[in-house]
């Protein structure tokens, strides 16, 4: 069962940056771009596990803070010339409130 978890107001996530959520499945990066679109991906870069929540966000891309891999947030894939995937999670933004969809957690 997927549960929608309230994360709070979008204002708590810096635009063009991110925060993270601690979950039983590990940390999830919550990233916000210049158009206030919010993305959720596993907070581990496919390269060497860098925390993506600390990276630069621009458009649909996050730049990993450790070695600057670029991750496409829509596909959850590293962009050329690199290879690798991150798991993405569903996110909804309604009335400035951010919701994260997670499997297997208490509501």
């Amino acid at each position, binding site marked *: 069962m997927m549960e929608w978890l309230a994360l709070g107001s979008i204002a708590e996530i*810096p635009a063009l940056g991110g925060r993270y959520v*601690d979950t039983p499945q590990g940390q999830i990066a919550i990233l916000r771009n210049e158009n206030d679109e919010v993305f959720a991906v596993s907070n581990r870069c496919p390269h060497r596990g860098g925390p993506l929540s600390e990276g630069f966000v*621009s458009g649909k891309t996050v730049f990993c803070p450790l070695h600057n891999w670029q991750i496409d947030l829509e596909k959850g894939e590293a962009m050329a*010339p690199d290879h690798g995937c991150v798991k993405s999670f569903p996110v909804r933004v309604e009335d400035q409130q951010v919701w994260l969809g997670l499997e297997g*957690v*208490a509501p």
Partner: protein
Amino acid sequence: MMNPVAVQHRKARLVVVGNGMAGIRAVEELLKMAPELYEITVFGDEPHPNYNRILLTPVLAGEMALEETILNPLDWYAEHGITLHTGSRVTAIDRVKRQVLTEDGYSAPYDRLLLATGAAATIAPIPGNHLPGVLRYRDMSDVEQLTRSSELGGEAVVIGGGLLGLEVAHGLRARGMGVTVVHRRAWPLDKQLDARGGALLQKAMEDRGVRFLLGKESAEILGDTHVTGLRFADDSEISADVLVMTIGIKPRIAIAQAAGLQCETGILVNDTLQTYDPRIYAVGECVQHRGQTYGLVAPLFEQAKVAANHLAEYGRMRYQGSVTSTKLKVTGIELFSAGDFMGGEGYEEVTLLDGSQGIYKKVILQDNKVVGGLLYGDTSIGPWLFQLMRDGTDVSAFRDNIVFGETHLGDSGHAGENQASRLADGAEICGCNGVAKGSIVRAIREQGLFTLEKVRKCTKASASCGSCTGLVEQLLASTLGGFYDSSPQKKALCGCTDFSHQEIRDAIIQQKLLSVRQTFACLDWRHPGGCATCRPAVNYYVRTAWPAEGLDDAQSRFINERAHANIQKDGTYSVIPRIYGGVTSPAELKRIAEVAERHNVPMVKFTGGQRLDLLGVKKEDLPQIWAELGMPSGHAYGKALRTVKSCVGTEFCRFGVQDSTRLAIELERRLERMWAPHKVKLAVSGCPRNCSESTIKDFGIIGVDSGWELYVGGNGGMKVRAADLLCKVKTHEEVLEMAKAFLQMYREDAQYLERTAPWVERVGLDHIQAVVVGDRESRQQLAARMDFALSQEKDPWAEAVSGRLDIHAAPLRRVPA
């Protein structure tokens, strides 16, 4: 018997078929050697005098006017007594009567014939390939047609992702069309790039709005009266208003073939560029020599030289084939490729990949010799590499550093500006025309050349594709010294903009741009969010220009500078408190020890800069640790003043002649919180034994009997550089003022991420001395600006502890299992 001159009293007649780059170059070479030997007639089926085909791309992109591409104006032909027939196609060669016949019924007798018919664009043999709207990219009329079509807007599809395909795509995009490049292989430019380089190029082109469809086989061009689209072998389709074919070229050999001259792909020629009929020579893209055809001007110009030598009856030179290198002429994309760039078994590779700067370099070696290479993003070492490859130089002595070029200084920055002056005299600068450095320098000196145009005229260097313009300008600058005033070569900050660092800085100052966002908006950034390269740079430029009003945007700071701690490989952080001059006290050490114990800090270590480092701290714990330490931030994480190292000095050392410790503490107090283009390290030694290693610091100070010696631009790290002596002063106050002035000049002038070592190399010690040492007023102003900037900075740890600064230490939410 073959001598055209001996038995005849009239001049021998030379007929040239093809009024293009190779043919006319051969005529030029011939006129240099034997101006009176022939009566020359030239036939060309284009309506123009000879122009520079290579420059069609800048013309199409709207960066250059058609007229600027003309190499030989009509006057030139007249001056040299050459009869020119433009718009006139030769349809047959009568080898028995020794004459050529044209389409319009004209005939011209020859004693020698030179074929230089070039090549034509290949058209794919698929249905619909003759529909209106299917265009080629070969000559001026194609460019005129493409320009006209682009005025209607709409979608262009380019079939073929090679050099020409990408250039035409760039041009049409610049004219406002939507452009898709369709390519058979998995990455564009597969003949010049490996997969990784191809991916970088694709991304850079995509950033400019060009789309790619890769691994696609075209099957049919759609449309009844005009192109409407393209269908692929997998039955998918794409719509198109214009379709350009750039899948290759084929030598124009029809008239040669019909005349019975031996041809395969091209017209066969020997090492003297003679065809099967020894009266008939051929040069250019139409020929095949030792099994090889060429599609670049450099080899064709070599051929032209040899053919001219024989036509002039010198009979000395032989053409033995060419090694070629390529460049792409898309503004803002630098790419160089030569030889075998793929490597594989039996080869060794040296590579460098810097994704953040978009730089990729790969050199292929075999038996310690360069056999190929590709450079993407920074091609400054291209000419040198190409030279090593052609000379077969043994590179074992410097193979590990080969990707950094002949000179490599400083652990950041590229000393590209000085590249040319360090090349050997024999090194080739202009690949198109084969002009070596020595001949350019000689021409500048002996003929008193002052401008790029003059050098182009006299040496031909940089006169063809223009890629070496930067190097030629460097040679002008280094040969003429202060006389040559060029605006610096323009290099875009990153893929988000075409503006250079300097242009952006100027705009921030002139238009009073007070934030990264405002700068991006005002300068039409391609991505409103920028990227990891431009955001920190622009934020730095805003803050330096406007220390009081400019917004310091946390999201435009690297994570270290946002969290005010160094991120480690496992995502934990390190905490390095400020310990001025490296002098601490038992009480302070106790406090640090207690904090480390209380928080189970996994490692406590002395840094290379005489400070204490608490390693392995979780982000969540940072504010608490800072609060308990009660010490200011050491900025060990920033592009900022790091430490001022000290030695023991007169207080205790038996050799000391100056109080180095006190000066170090004073300097660190006065300069702390200084942000800079890159990290800045200082050191003070109390005597010339130099125990704190002042001569490898950005600003180093050495005590001597009479006062202090100040050194600048030193560097330890990856590339060691000994600092230069800036000046000698007497008092602490003077040291402080010089330090502030020098560092402020560096802050205002250096590019973001350029350390002092390459910066000093670039702008020159003389210039810095003139501004900082020689001019008291400018020194004081610089120091005052530094003081003002520093007065605006607060200690970030204290800010975070008091709650005025949020580093987002805690997670947004914790979800229980």
